[in-house]
């Protein structure tokens, strides 16, 4: 078999293994709970009998591996169990919100990825120019701002005067245009934060590349700057750029939590924060697993793609 196919299969296997370990960590974390779930749910005033009854009802009297297996097989079939706080099936709570969160993340990514790649490449090409300095200082500041600061500044500037709504109310009958309009501010917040990161990384990757001897050789061959960038730098820049994009899409996952809370956006992040304050561990576990899986899959995709763009790996000696 082709060496690359073997390599990609190895990566995929590693990805599955990572997912498995992640599920173990997320499940295992609950085992660290002082006391156990039933007693912390009922509080200190509960009698031992009621605790024992609840424990039996929740299956907590089973050994941990058995419960893990039940949980994992359930998750694989889309059944995350029931919420401890509301007693509703978690899958029902997640269904609509997952879609909303994915929509918001994609919206932000669709603006941020092209924008930051263009800005990053330009900053690298015009290194030390005024544009580069301003872009850099701007990006550095944006990275330094907490997401909620960016969000409130945008609300202050754009929502308070009535241009955009500061709270997002979605309903299923909305047209795509309306949806894009009402979610504009949260998407913009995410875009600003992610663009700064991505622009800086793209710039660094390109500068690193432009310092390599084969780029100097291309210049000494009398090639035009455009040709040098497109033909000599870009094919080698794909792998680092893919990694930058993956890293930042993964970053969106974290950013989404705070932004959803600020804009009261009905997504997974908001649900997670609510569940943490209610200490609804079953829901937190489910959402953590979804976020972590998305993160792992993104990195895995980037890994495979950058392997495919590397001629050294694609064509062995």
């Amino acid at each position, binding site marked *: 078999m082709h060496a690359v196919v073997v390599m990609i299969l190895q990566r995929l296997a590693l990805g599955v293994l990572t997912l498995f370990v992640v599920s173990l960590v997320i499940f295992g974390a609950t085992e660290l709970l002082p006391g156990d779930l039933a007693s912390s749910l009922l509080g200190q005033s509960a009698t031992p009998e009621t605790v024992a009854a609840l424990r039996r009802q929740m299956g907590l009297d089973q050994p941990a591996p058995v419960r893990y297996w039940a949980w994992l097989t359930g998750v694989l079939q889309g059944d995350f169990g029931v919420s401890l706080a509301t007693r509703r099936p978690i899958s029902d709570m997640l269904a609509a919100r997952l879609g909303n969160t994915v929509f918001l993340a994609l919206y932000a990514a669709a603006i941020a990825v092209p924008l930051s790649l263009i800005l990053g490449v330009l900053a690298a090409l015009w290194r030390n120019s005024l544009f580069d300095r301003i872009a850099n200082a701007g990006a550095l500041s944006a990275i330094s701002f907490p997401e909620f600061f960016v969000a409130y500044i945008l609300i202050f500037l754009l929502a308070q005067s009535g241009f955009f709504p500061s709270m997002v109310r979605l309903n299923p009958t909305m047209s795509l245009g309306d949806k894009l309009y009402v979610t504009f501010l949260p998407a913009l917040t995410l875009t600003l934060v992610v663009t700064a990161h991505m622009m800086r990384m793209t710039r660094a990757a390109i500068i690193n590349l432009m310092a390599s001897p*084969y780029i100097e050789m291309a210049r*000494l061959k009398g090639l035009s700057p455009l040709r040098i960038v497109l*033909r000599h730098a870009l094919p080698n820049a794909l792998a680092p750029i893919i990694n930058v994009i993956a890293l930042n899409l993964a970053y969106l996952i974290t950013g989404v939590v705070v932004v959803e809370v600020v804009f009261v956006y009905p997504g997974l992040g908001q649900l997670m924060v609510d569940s943490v304050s209610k200490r609804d561990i079953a829901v937190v576990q489910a959402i953590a697993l979804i976020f972590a899986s998305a993160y792992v899959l993104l990195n895995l995709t980037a890994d495979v793609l950058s392997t495919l763009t590397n001629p050294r790996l694609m064509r062995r*000696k």
Partner: protein
Amino acid sequence: MADVLLTIKDLKIEGRAGDDWLPIIKGVDLTLHRGEVLGLIGESGAGKSTLGLAAMGFARDGCRISGGEIDFDGIDLRRASEGKKRALRGRRIAYVAQSAAASFNPAHKLIDQYSEVPVLGGMARSKAEEEAKTLYRKMQLPEPDEIGFRYPHQVSGGQLQRAMTAMAMANHPDLIIFDEPTTALDVTTQIEVLAAIRDIVRDYNTAAIYITHDLAVVAQMADRIKILLRGEQVEEADTRTMLAAPKAEYTKSLWAVRSFARPVAPPPQDAPLVSVRNVRAAYGKVDILHDVSFDIHAGRTLAVVGESGSGKSTVARVITGLLPPREGEVVFDGETLPADYRSRTRDQLRQCQMIYQMADTALNPKLRLRELIGRPAYMYLGLRGRALDARIRELLALIELEPDKYIDRLPSELSGGQKQRIGIARALAAEPRLIICDEVTSALDQIVQEGILKLLDRLQRELNLAYMFITHDLSTVRAIADEVVVMQKGRVVEKGPKPEMFAPPHEPYTELLLSSVPEMDPDWLSQLLDARAGKT
């Protein structure tokens, strides 16, 4: 003169250091005629690469041309627009870089990189490929019809260097700049590349600037030689005159470098200090050493010679215990050493010390000389306080560095040669009986090399040290060895006293190795190629 191709007058180039600009080239003149090859010689930091690039009107990032004239065939390269200079580069002036492996784009096939400029100039793709194959054949590349369709990482270093020369030849340029094109290659590979470059430059009547630090190489390639020292021109003359009668003191000192040689020692009478016996060693599953045996005697120097991949450094790792052998043993003064250094006693560790090739990576940059040199004396000999201080000063004096001036310096405050001396002092501080010298002179300029070799020789006589000298450089072997071991692909090809090794008859590989070392005679390459052609 009508056939002048390139004129450089009073050229000045500066490099940025923080907010300041420091001069790199300080007013250099240069005239090159059509079809002429000029050798540009200098040690590291002489500014020869910078000058070579300036001949293309090019300055690296962080450098700027600050004064003087560059005239290429009537075109003023200092005032020409970027577009005009681009039109010259790759077409009328071409460049061959030191490391072809790094200078070929890893993402494209060799022939695509060859064809790029010709096709942009309007040549049909198929014609460009045909020409490439012709040039590959002329450069004596194996499988000239197929090799272009490989990626750079699929081709060896020597072949890449030739492919790059072919690429430079693509548009039959008037001038090619060769920037140390064979420095990274083994001697036996170097010959092939040198021969190919020389022939093709002659065939196409191309002018060239050949940059190198190796006098013997430039003697083969150049019609004229120009010597640079720290950005200034020292002297210039045609090759034979320059070799026969250098005028400037600096040039004479360069020429004199290879004069050091120690007298031939009588055969050893005593039992060997170290015996390496039937060693087989491997990294993972791959055997690196096969049945290697040799002896080292007290007060004598054994040189282990070989090209990259011969396993010569691996032998050192086996002796020091960094790489326990699969079979065989190392006997030190009659007792077998534990294979792993972690199982050796402190005294066993003390007796065998190492000096490394790169003093920069062998000395901890954050420690002062006092601790660098003092630590072994503290550990092994238990010296403390005033006794330790006295010993450090004694060692500094021994390596000819003034103790009061240097004892509290950091390695970064020393020159390359001084750093290597500290490496020697650190080894001496342990009061060892064997010192392993791993390519200790190959990172240094030639004049500095000479000083290090003399110092090592003096110390050996004073302290009755045994040296194991690992090197690829046969002139170093000639200078310092008593016994020689020649290695190839992990095997000992030949061993014996130095006079025997350098006199025929030789093993075929030794013969190849010896004959491949360039000599200062300008006719050496032609004669060698004739001789080899006659034999086959």
